[in-house]
């Protein structure tokens, strides 16, 4: 369970999060949506402890994350742009992250096979394409089998085949009872995969509910228009 209470975050004069209250409980895929600059990534980074809140509280399993780093053992995070040290090979990077997470004995081969990364294992990361890097990024995220998974734009750079694999993997993790939080700009992907939609606008939770509920509420036939409607409504 993730519990967020009156979370505020300013970057200088810019207020990004304006008192968010949010509870994420029970297995499922939670999609955080919102226009550019609405605070999706900031919220995610707050939970990860990368951004320090101006005020408010974040609890993970009823424990505050402030000045704590061990709770991250329960989290897998896929960052938005993965840029790895160019001198390392894929294999070395995976071994290194395993080492850093103190799980050196995990076997990554099933994931590697699934994402078809074998040919790249001994290539230097600096020479990989964006899509391949994202696959490496995914490998590192799904390897550790933590109860919480955060995916920031997981679809970036992926080809359709890889996208299908990603969806399968998310479904599998969900079925294991995990909480998966993601952001994405691909609405079809979000609609297909997510159980709960958290719509952020101007630093607040503007809408919370399933895709069906959203369509109903906005009276739009499809998801994209429903989302667009949320935005225009706000503009009025």
């Amino acid at each position, binding site marked *: 369970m993730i519990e967020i209470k009156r979370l505020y975050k300013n*970057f200088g004069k810019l207020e990004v999060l304006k008192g968010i209250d949010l509870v994420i409980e029970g297995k499922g895929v939670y999609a955080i949506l919102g226009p550019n600059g609405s605070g999706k990534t900031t919220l995610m*980074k707050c939970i*990860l*402890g*990368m*951004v*320090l809140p101006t005020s408010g509280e974040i609890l993970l399993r009823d424990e505050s994350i402030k000045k704590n*780093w*061990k*709770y*991250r*053992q329960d*989290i897998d*995070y896929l*960052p938005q*742009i*993965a*840029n*790895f*040290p*160019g*001198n*390392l090979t894929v294999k070395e990077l995976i071994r*290194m*992250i395993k*080492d*850093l*997470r103190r799980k050196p004995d995990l076997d990554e081969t099933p994931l590697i096979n699934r994402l078809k990364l074998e040919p790249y294992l001994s290539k230097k990361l600096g020479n990989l394409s964006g899509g391949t890097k994202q696959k490496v990024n995914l490998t*590192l995220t799904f390897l550790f089998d933590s109860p919480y998974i*955060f995916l920031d734009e997981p679809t970036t750079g992926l080809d359709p085949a890889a996208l299908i694999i990603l969806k399968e993997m998310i479904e599998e993790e969900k079925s294991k009872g995990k909480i998966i939080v993601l952001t994405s700009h691909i609405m079809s992907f979000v609609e297909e995969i997510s159980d709960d939609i958290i719509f952020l606008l101007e630093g607040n939770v503007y809408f919370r509910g399933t895709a069906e509920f959203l369509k109903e509420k906005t009276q739009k036939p499809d998801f994209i228009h429903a989302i667009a409607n949320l935005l225009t409504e706000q503009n009025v």
Partner: protein
Amino acid sequence: MFKIFKYSFYDLMRSRWNYVYLLFYLALGLVLLFVSTSLSKAILTLMNIIILLVPLIGTVFGIMYYYSSKEFTELLLALPLKRSSIFLGQYFGVAISLSLSLVIGLGIPFVIYGIFQSADIWHFGQLLILGTFLSFIFSGISYNIALHNENRIKGFGFAILAWLFMAVIYDGIFMIALVMLHEYPLEKFSLIFSIFNPIDLSRIMMLLKLDISAMLGYTGALFKMFFGNYLGSTIAMLILALWTITPVFILKWRSAKKDF
């Protein structure tokens, strides 16, 4: 921290630039020993190059490594690791790999030359110690500047400016002050002024050990008295240590407060 250090260190040790740096010192050492008539002269020339180059390379490497590994740092930040250990680990990786390049690069030619049989071994040793201090100090300063500036161009600019200030401008101001105040007794003033710049401090500590100290004449007497006794050189080393530790603490403190 040690794990991060280990990976940063390996990463840097495999970087092309580190080899260029190492080879540069290797070549420099060989050429100097080949050209110079005496070890003492070679060490003097080396000192001139070290006080110019070590701080500059430390600054540039520090800032480049921070920015180039920024995304990777963010990846690490999401892992169950302590923040300070990430940054300190990276910093020590940079500082130690730079220092090793210096020590090994210069050490090999001098060892081949037979520095161990020479009375100049202590001077050479002191030069390497001072070079190591300068590597730590300036990569520490530039790491802090990088941490403080998201904008790479700005960060790079500030870091170079900081180097320029310490290496050149500080002495320029010092000289102008000396000229303007030349009616007053200034030995103490110059002692204090030069003690607070690690580059000047290293240079003077080295000069006083070499033949050329004779040229310092009357003015050097106070310096010699100060650095010559046990207390003085301890103070000098303490100040260098302070210069080394301070950036580390600031790094620890600022990195704990920063958003990524």
